[in-house]
């Protein structure tokens, strides 16, 4: 998991309601209402798509 539960300035993050979402058929846990990109990265999913011509991976930028 790549979440930051404790932070020296922002303090502790109260965990929101957990929800299950499916990414390409695979279930992952996300926090209700959070950005999808954040949920993906929190679960180690970096590749959002492959390019049409060269089939290269692309992520957030």
């Amino acid at each position: 998991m790549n979440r930051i539960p404790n932070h020296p300035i922002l303090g502790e993050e109260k965990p929101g309601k957990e929800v299950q979402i499916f990414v390409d058929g695979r279930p992952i846990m996300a926090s209700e209402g959070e950005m999808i990109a954040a949920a993906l990265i929190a679960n180690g999913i970096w590749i959002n798509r492959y390019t049409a011509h060269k089939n290269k991976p692309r992520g957030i930028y």
Partner: protein
Amino acid sequence: MIETELAIVGAGPAGLSAAIEARRAGAEVLLIDENSRPGGQLFKQIHKFFGSRSHKAGTRGMNIGTELLRESKELGIQTWLNGEVCGIEEGHKLWVVRDRSRSEIVKAKKIILSTGATENAVPFPGWELPGVMGAGAAQTMINVNRVLPGKKVIMLGSGNVGVIVAYQLLQAGAEVVAILEAAPKLGGYGVHTAKVSRAGVPFYVSHTIKQAFGTDHVEAVEIVKLDDSFKKVPGTERTLEVDTVCLATGLTPLTELAWLAGCKFCYVPVLGGHLPIHDDKMHSTQPDIFIAGDISGIEEASTAMEEGKLAGINAACELGYIAPEEAEVRSREIWDSLNSLRSGYFGQKRRDSKVSILQKSEELISYFKAMII
């Protein structure tokens, strides 16, 4: 179609400050922002701001944001969130896409564009790999979404954005392998640079990234030394293992709506490139259209707030809510404050550039007046 007296695009520090001034004067205001939360860049800025004390220096950006939101709530400013302004049509009509699902047209007597800026990217082989991202994107992930975008990060660019985000990555638990700077000197304010340096992060001046390696994700970067004319010095390449590359290579004003509206532009590299020409009331060259904040030149939240106030006061004045004499007195006070913000080594350059924009505006006005006569 919805009608309003004043529509403000962008609810960052500039837009919020403009809305507060105009609403306080009595104008009917509609504030529109594409995000689900107002505040623009402020809520990412968890560090204490620099500048003088009267300009909220020493206060964390996010707390300034909370304060602005409280004021705008108290005044009951109508705010559309998740509203993307996609066009400006003739007759001051804004095309807004709300909740990514439906279009709405807003007809406004006056418009303030306070859309902020966008990050610059630097292309090098491998720059499209997952793991290469803007420093601002990484900052949003760690400070807003509380998600760490990488564990071993290299930062390209040593300006304030680069060093502040590097420090915030450390706070969030990442390792910052190095900060690279293409110029022979570091770009950021000494306070920030010193903090990162004390934390043990190495700086490499006269260096850039030659390429990034990896199949599905960044795995390493090759860095290279640059000579005095910014040419890569062969044989100085070195490979560093990283999983994330952050680009802090400047910002460009988000000016599309101003172009669409037909505003005249000038090119001012110190302030980020092409900017709408504006006068000392933040009036663009188009009637009824004002600009404020990073769209009128990349500066700081503190200057963005002052420019927002100027735009808000003068738009309210044109709408008849503030007497011209009063608007002038208050504008002058704000200019005093802006001038003190734009001082020092970096500030003076911005101040000189701003003066050149105001002169261009005056030249244009007299040119058009001469044509009419």
